[in-house]
């Protein structure tokens, strides 16, 4: 299952490292990544592939927990919703 991870927060070192490391530990493959700083706000969008559907909640919960610890806003959504809205 493909999912989009968006990470927003105040820019500082180690955000990409922390998120990527967590995904690595969960065995999640990163397919694409784009990152920018908008008015001091760190904005990262990742396309990831989660091997098994059952693992979705595990990955999502771990990322949301990390968001709280690092004071970031993290969203995990299946990529279908973006395809549905923006592609005919």
């Amino acid at each position: 299952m493909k999912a989009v991870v968006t990470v927003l927060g105040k820019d500082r070192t180690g955000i990409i490292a922390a998120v990527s490391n967590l995904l690595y530990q969960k065995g999640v493959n990163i397919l694409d990544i784009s990152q920018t700083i908008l008015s001091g706000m760190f904005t990262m969008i990742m396309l990831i592939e989660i091997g098994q559907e059952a693992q979705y909640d595990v990955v999502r919960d771990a990322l949301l927990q990390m968001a709280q610890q690092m004071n970031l806003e993290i969203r995990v959504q299946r990529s279908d919703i973006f395809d549905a809205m923006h592609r005919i």
Partner: protein
Amino acid sequence: MLNSNEILQTLRMIDQNKLDVRTITMGISLLDCACGTPEGLYDRVYDRITAQARDLVKTGETIEREFGIPIVNKRISITPAALILGHADPVRLAQALDRAAKEVGVNFLGGFSALVHKAMTTADEALIRAIPEALATTDVVCSSVNVGTTKAGINMDAVKLMGQVIKQAAERTRDHDGFACAKLVVFANAVEDNPFMAGAFHGVGEGNATINVGVSGPGVVKAALEECKGAPFDVVAETIKRTAFKITRVGQLVAQEASRRLNVPFGIVDLSLAPTPTMGDSVAHILEEMGLEVTGTHGTTAALALLNDAVKKGGVMASSHVGGLSGAFIPVSEDIGMIDAANAGVLSLEKLEAMTCVCSVGLDMIAIPGDTSAETISAIIADEAAIGMINQKTTAVRIIPAPGKTVGDHVVFGGLLGEAPIIPVHKESSKAFIDRGGRIPAPIHSLRN
């Protein structure tokens, strides 16, 4: 890879503009529950609903989590209860429905209903007369009665009865501003696949079970219009269409997923823009964004007509099956902009009636003085049903004669049902008109065969 701007736009729609799926409604046929003994009926109905909808709420929550889109309500609609009532006690049937709905954890169950647009059966009349007691002694059961269609005309005996029923329902829930009336809709041209409450029921043309989805998103439309201030209406219409397309695609996706996971056929997506009483989720504010100082002033009907049409045009291509009510909702107590307009005295009952000619429903969640007579309420229903009958569209009346309250007072229902000021009605009597009874014949343009 998706473009970053598209992803951020979707997130903005959900986080800031309150884009949500308003409801996943599972329609369940209870026709096979009809039974010779009343006790058998109550048991069969309970068993059928709890078996069919066992996983509805859990599935809705899973979809919500996976797609990151709020799904506000999970609901059930059933076969109009009068069709299976037989000689059973309607109140006990309503209570069995209430228990079943609570067991599976849904927010509302609709279909304590009777279709009496031409005439009433004994069971229809028994059910209608039991509505006040049924709604006062249950929590999540919703009721609707269809009193007219373009093909059949308007059953004025039923219209008269519904005026009395609404008064009694308000009185039975006097301590809560007549709350029972918020769960009761009187329709003309009711649709069989409406996922929205309080008027949802599972029509007789439907299968064993179906999944219908109602989308929302007035905040998203308003935000899009903020980008085209002063632009001509052609641009306004195009902007609404583009936005409605995106909103509806989310609804279609959620409907398909729910259908697949629950192994229940997909029915329709209802394209309605449904407001809530929170800021940034108002249909009235869309109209005001088009250039009206306050909703209800001159130009409101035209603005609503454009909005309603553009929502349909944008949405229809985004879904394989569009149905339900599909248009803009204008419930007064459930829309912060409508509440403000009514408080300011700009939004009158007459203007609301005009607005119902061009949008998807009718006089919705309007509080009127508690001393309004049953005949006046019936006359309001007759006017609204006439608009539906002549214009071949659905119209409805969900009106609350708030006991002990009058113009200047407020009713407060809380949650999605919101609050509203009491709106004045005409004092002049319609009693002799309503007392005639009988049936208003179907209009000439209903003879299309």
